[in-house]
């Protein structure tokens, strides 16, 4: 939406904008089917009652409404929901309260799948995946914490041990078999 010029209209200050009307060129066909493919259930049955927005903790805090996200999915208004894919805390309140038995949290998960396959990958995803491939854990081991473990009498984080290398190998085989490494662009980490 572009600001064209400021115009004083009958006592109101309004900014003129282009694109007040959405037409077919804004719509992406097949978005609803793609969402079903990734486990999002049929968004077309959403009645837009607004219960999901009402229970959503995120909708209370930012300019985001779960119901609008579902509507955009129905229409295929992909560009309106590009930036909201990672704000959902997957608390599943929406699923618990939906009278049509839909799952907006799963729709968000499906949108994330679509985004990642279009190359939109948040950096923390790559970091966690890399940690998993290197250490078998998504959280990188920390030397300071390891010292504290020793003080407490706990064994060292065993991911350093030789014996664990077979586990790491197994993880790498699986991640490679599902082409996840390729999807995230971290093939060089995988050594199988």
């Amino acid at each position, binding site marked *: 939406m572009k600001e064209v010029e400021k115009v004083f209209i009958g006592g109101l200050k309004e900014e003129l904008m282009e694109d007040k009307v959405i037409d077919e060129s804004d719509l992406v066909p097949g978005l609803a089917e793609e969402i079903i493919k990734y486990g999002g259930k049929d968004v077309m049955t959403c009645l837009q*009652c*607004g*219960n999901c*927005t*009402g229970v959503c903790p995120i909708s209370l805090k930012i300019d985001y409404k779960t119901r609008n996200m579902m509507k955009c999915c129905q229409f295929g208004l992909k560009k309106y929901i590009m930036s909201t894919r990672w704000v959902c805390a997957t608390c599943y309140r929406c699923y618990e*309260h*939906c*009278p049509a*038995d839909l799952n907006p949290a799963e729709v968000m998960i499906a949108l994330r799948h679509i985004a990642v396959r279009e190359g939109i990958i948040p950096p923390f995803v790559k970091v966690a995946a890399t940690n998993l491939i290197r250490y078998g854990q998504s959280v990188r081991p920390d030397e300071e914490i390891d010292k504290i473990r020793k003080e407490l009498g706990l064994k060292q984080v065993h991911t350093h041990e030789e014996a664990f290398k077979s586990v790491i190998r197994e993880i790498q085989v699986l991640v490679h078999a599902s082409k996840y490494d390729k999807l995230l662009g971290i093939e060089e980490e995988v050594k199988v």
Partner: protein
Amino acid sequence: MAEPANQDKDTGAKTPKKEDGATAEPKIGVFVCHCGSNIAGVVDCGKVREAAEKLSGVVVAKENKYTCSDLGQEEIIKAIKENGIERVVVASCSPRLHEPTFRRCIERAGLNPYLLHMVNIREQCSWVHSHEKEKATEKATDLVKMGVSKAGMLKPLVAREVPVEPVSLVIGAGVAGIQAALDLANMGFKVYVVETQPSIGGKMAQLDKTFPTGDCAICILAPKMVELARHPNITLLSYSDVEEVKGYIGSYEVKVRRKARFVHEDKCVGCGLCTEVCPVKVDNEFDLGFGQRKAIYVPFPQAVPLKYTIDKQNCLHFKSGKCLLCVKACSNQAIDHKMRDEVLTLKVGTIIVATGFDTYEPMRKGVYKYWEFDNVITGLELERLLNASGPTAGHLVRPSDGQVPKRIAFIQCVGSRNKKINRNYCSRVCCMYAIKNSQIIMEHEPETDIAVYYNDIRAFGKGFEELYHRVREDGVEFIRGRPAKLTQDPNTKTITIRAEETLLNKITERDFDLVVLSTGLIPSTGSEKIGKVLSLTVSSDGFFAEAHPKLRPVDTAMDGIFLAGCCQSPKDIPDSVAQAKAAASSAAAPMFAKKVWIEPLTAVVDKELCVGCGLCTELCPYGAPELVPGEKGGMKANVIEALCHGCGTCAASCPQKAIAPMQFTDVQIFSELEAALHDKKQNGKKKAEAEVT
């Protein structure tokens, strides 16, 4: 059953040797229908007709544009007479549509109507294979081949007549039951009305005013209730339950338990002296717990019959043996704590089920906090509070402090349109009763702020949209959004509703003094038991299933049993009354005719093969087979034809193959299979031979 038959080399059709009633090679006529373009647009009817002509036993094969039309039927009759046809095959639509039509048609031509076989080449062929015309034609040809084979094995059958008692039973005396009973009684039939509550009237008696006109519910209902009680043709059995029903249309045997009131109905004059002295106070069910009643009570002032009833659970005398204050107060010696239940047996010809509905009970610890917050009430509770003879004499006050509420919210679709709780249907009346109640409240207290939280407003009926418009003129606000959270101020008990107002695109929080949950309708608690007693099926929403959703809305799958009112599906009073009148008219038909024909497509037992194991009696959903002593000793199965629906469950399970429904014996069915697979078998044999050589 029959001996294995001869097999035709070309078609594989089996013809029976010599069975009673069936000729060795009956002459078969085949009529292939175009059904305009419904069939002909996909299936090449000419080819099907040609192939049929070549089948063994077929003497004439014709095509027709609309076989069910007068012209088409005349052609069939002509062909039968000219060619001496003995079995008729009509290849057209589903038998569910026109089987009776064609049966009557061939009967006019002088044939037994059960010598007709219909082959479905529309719903099961042209309509589902519309993109594969060649294959559809092949399938139609095969289906006709199968049909011809079976037709050759049809036996003439005779429908049986049974008498019909001109007496009807109406179960449930809400507005639907009352209307149905009155209509039947006015037609001259004797009617028994059985009602489980101490008084008739049902839920309508609890309502305040009705939509869309604002008529007072009990004011328009009470005259009908009195008329029913006084009608010479009606016997009212109130405070009674139907316990068992045996028999079939025309002669049902019904066991009714008259529960003990502990008050003799013929002596009680309804003076009320007993209730004045009774020391026990309990929550009044009629007022949904908002008011109180005594242990000896009438449910409401306009009760019919106006006879007192003792609530055994709470009566002091039953609990501790003391207190006979009511007995002392009664000047007619009507009270008798020693009364017992009475069981009657009634013989009736037809039954109308009008067991009504209950309202949905909101969940504990649910979002709407019905059990946790005092100022959240249901729609029916609101009706009692608004009602002039209710617990607050018609003054709407908040349960928490008795103050007049200035801000009221209605929440729609509570317990309805919700897949999560398995109540996915719309209860139909809630939009209008919320609108109606808003109007009543605005009339009493014009300064009230009312908001209706809705998902859709369904104001579909006569006068409904006008009332919806009227309340918007009065200032009632309609908020589109499903409330997500209710919280309560601990001191004022003011309720805050948080919801996304979808039309504003904002999440809002609003405060209210009173919240009314427009709860939906669910099948009444007694209906499950009645359903089992009468072998009634239910639809996916839990209400009783009608025989056909469009064309038979008051019939059930059981002949002679009809449905009226909300027990079939949620509806308002005009629709309940209309359906009750329809049920009465349907029930009257067989009773006026004094007899009904039972279709002979029922199961028959070969007593020689039957060993009396009783498996069929256990499995039959209609209770049709029974074990009777055999002529030569032992027990044999015997089918009560009037109860049998020809479903074939018995035939499928009989270990001796001793029982089968007529026209669907194993021999008949296998002949169809042989006809269908014969060619493929021959081709397979040829292929196998070719491979070997």
